[in-house]
């Protein structure tokens, strides 16, 4: 469903993504991991067509992103890390606008929105009356997720989707994406919360400095590294294994009993 071949993105002297090749079949949830600045978001943005690769190709649902960009975009649902929205619109105005961009009829869109808000515990009144700026962080995240799923796309890309969601909403969301994967949807799940990735994803991909450093099922990865947890493997591969000692040393620089009062 998603095929990346030698994907590279260069900004000036900095290579954000370096010859990344990856193939994700239908029905699979892939956890995309990496430290800050590893190139995860850049990779996702190249898959969505928001960024043009410096070299290499992106194929989504059989369409090449350079030649059939609109088809690629129609096949995708994307939850960006920023959770950006037009804050001066009400939630309902925003979702109706998004539906129209995918050619969903207004009545059909309203029915679909009703189903989503029921799932996410949002009232129709709150959706129609308040502007998005007045929503809580979790509510805004729910609207961004609804806007990504509204047109029922075969490929879903999530960049830190749980950011701001409460425990119940996060649990519901995890079950939702697992069910969607069973129905044959391809899901890329980028996150820093390794526990969630370990539980939800069929496969884990770790990127470090723009390069692919690990690709495999969570259980296989753990087995290959002597039964270590995903967190320990991640730290080892991305140079974070010295952090514990570094943190302990740094903590010793704090004056016992708090800061000195003038």
């Amino acid at each position, binding site marked *: 469903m998603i095929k990346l071949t030698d994907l590279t993105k260069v*900004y000036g002297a900095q290579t954000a993504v370096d010859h990344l090749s990856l193939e994700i079949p239908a029905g699979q949830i892939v956890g995309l991991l990496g430290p800050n600045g590893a190139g995860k978001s850049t990779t996702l943005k190249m898959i969505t067509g928001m960024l043009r690769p410096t070299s290499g190709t992106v194929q989504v649902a059989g369409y090449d992103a350079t030649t059939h960009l609109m088809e690629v975009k129609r096949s995708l649902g994307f939850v960006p890390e920023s959770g950006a929205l037009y804050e001066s619109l009400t939630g309902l105005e925003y979702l109706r606008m998004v539906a129209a961009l995918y050619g969903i009829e207004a009545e059909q869109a309203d029915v679909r929105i009703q189903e989503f808000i029921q799932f996410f515990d949002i009232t129709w009144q709150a959706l129609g009356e308040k502007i998005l700026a007045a929503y809580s962080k979790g509510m805004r995240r729910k609207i961004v997720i609804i806007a990504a799923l509204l047109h029922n796309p075969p490929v879903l890309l999530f960049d830190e989707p749980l950011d701001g969601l409460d425990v119940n909403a996060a649990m519901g969301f995890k079950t939702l994406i697992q069910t969607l994967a069973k129905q044959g949807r391809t899901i890329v799940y980028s996150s820093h919360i390794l526990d969630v990735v370990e539980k939800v994803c069929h496969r884990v991909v770790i990127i470090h400095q723009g390069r692919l450093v690990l690709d495999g099922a969570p259980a296989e990865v753990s087995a290959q590294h002597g039964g270590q947890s995903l967190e320990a493997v991640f730290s080892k591969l991305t140079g974070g294994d010295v952090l514990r000692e570094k943190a302990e040393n740094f903590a010793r620089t704090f004056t016992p009993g708090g800061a000195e009062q003038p």
Partner: protein
Amino acid sequence: MVPSNLKAVQRRALYTLFDRIYKRGRRVQWNRDFNPEKSRRRQWLGYAIVVAMGMLMVGFVPGKTPFLVFVTLMHSFTTLVAGLGVMYACSEILFHEQESDILLHRPVETRLILQVKAWVIFNNIYLQILLFNLLAMAFALSRPEVDARFLVSHALALGLNILGTLSFVILAYHVCLKLFGRERLRNFMTTAQIVAAFAILFSSQASLRYFKAIDGSAWQPSVWLNCFPTVWLANLESLILGLPRTPFLWTGVVLALLVPLLLAWLALSVLAGAYEEAVSALNEQAPPRRVAPGQERRWAERWTLSWWAKIWMRDPVERAGFLLTLAQVTRVRNVKLKFFTRLLQFSTYPCYFMMAGVDAQSPWLGFFFPGVFGLIGYTLGDVILHSEEFSGADIFRFTPLPSPAALFYGARKATLVLAFIPILFIWSTVLVLLTRDVAILESLIPSVLFGLTCSYVPVLTKPSLIFSLSDPVGMAFSKGCLFQLLPMLVGALIGGISYFAQQVGLFHAWVLVLAVGFFFLSKFFRARLERQPLDLEAT
């Protein structure tokens, strides 16, 4: 299944979206109790105010002038107002930093987004400008050469005026992107907007001043007048009304039709591809700036650590306010736009006085500056209160500061270094070169004193932390005018008294009175500011 009319559906959805964003404005994001219904009702009130503001134009445009001058003045006035409206609309909806995260991954062409945005801006500004011209149009019908055709000709010319202005601004962005590349896009976009705003405001002001000074009785137009775009539109209207058809008129008509359409074609079609590049580039992270070892501190930071900066700003909080202001004014797009556009506009006001007949020999020269410097001082003080960084300002609320005074003092000093002193230097040089007499600088002393005092006023009228207030663009027009008018009026009074004092040989005594007066006034302002509690209520 993709519907066959998808593009039309998308166009309608995008139109509704951008129209709402434009009408509600960015400021609505900070109004949690915003009610769309109430906003629609207020919109009608806004339109009524715009019609009433048209009285200004009726008052400004003299009735007994040749038709060409009359209509050119109407268009100059209109361009001034429309130019500001277009600039505001462009900064409101043309470039939204997070728009690529919202729209660019959806199946909609960026070209369509640009065209719909331009259409939204055009329609909204056109409606406002038509309403603004309504009274003047009715007034024009009393002229002997004007009949009902004028209503059509003027409506058409206004449309071309706004199309040209809007396309010019969008084209300025595209050209900057083409010339300077995406790496420096943010800076150049802001510069382009400032330059475009300045060009529009300056040319319309110049046109206003020039045509206002024309004596109607024996005036004959010459071909070079077609240098003014507003004259092209007046020529077009003359043609529609059947006035004598001269080569001058035809030249203007051709330019009036050709230039706006050509600009629109270039901005919205030929170079529209650049817009996609711009919107996606705004969302990209710039490559990290490489800093040589030992050069981690920027020049401004190094400067604030120097011994003489420490003498000028003893309090470290003051120095922090100074650095923060430098960063905001030179890096944050909204602040940069407000700061430099207004300063460019105000600092050129003396040019208009000169165009209106104040020359090097005029005894008035030097005495019309207090109003200008008062306005500049007030604006500097005002800009450093606004940048909508409510959460950023929270850091000051957490820290044990007794009042916002020290931060404001540092910020004020930064604006003096960045703007007040350079403008003072430029005008001092111009005056010395014009008069070839250094003694003229003496006449600027009242202006400097008044300008420095005015810079305290905003924070006293709106007690707040620096950079923590929302954008005043959304502030009521009347209130904005009042705040600008007051320094100008008081400045004019000071200028008038200074001139009189010079004529009667009491100038030095007057300067002394002013200096002492402003010293105590500033002291009073500072004492009040230091008594203000820190604004604890975060927005």
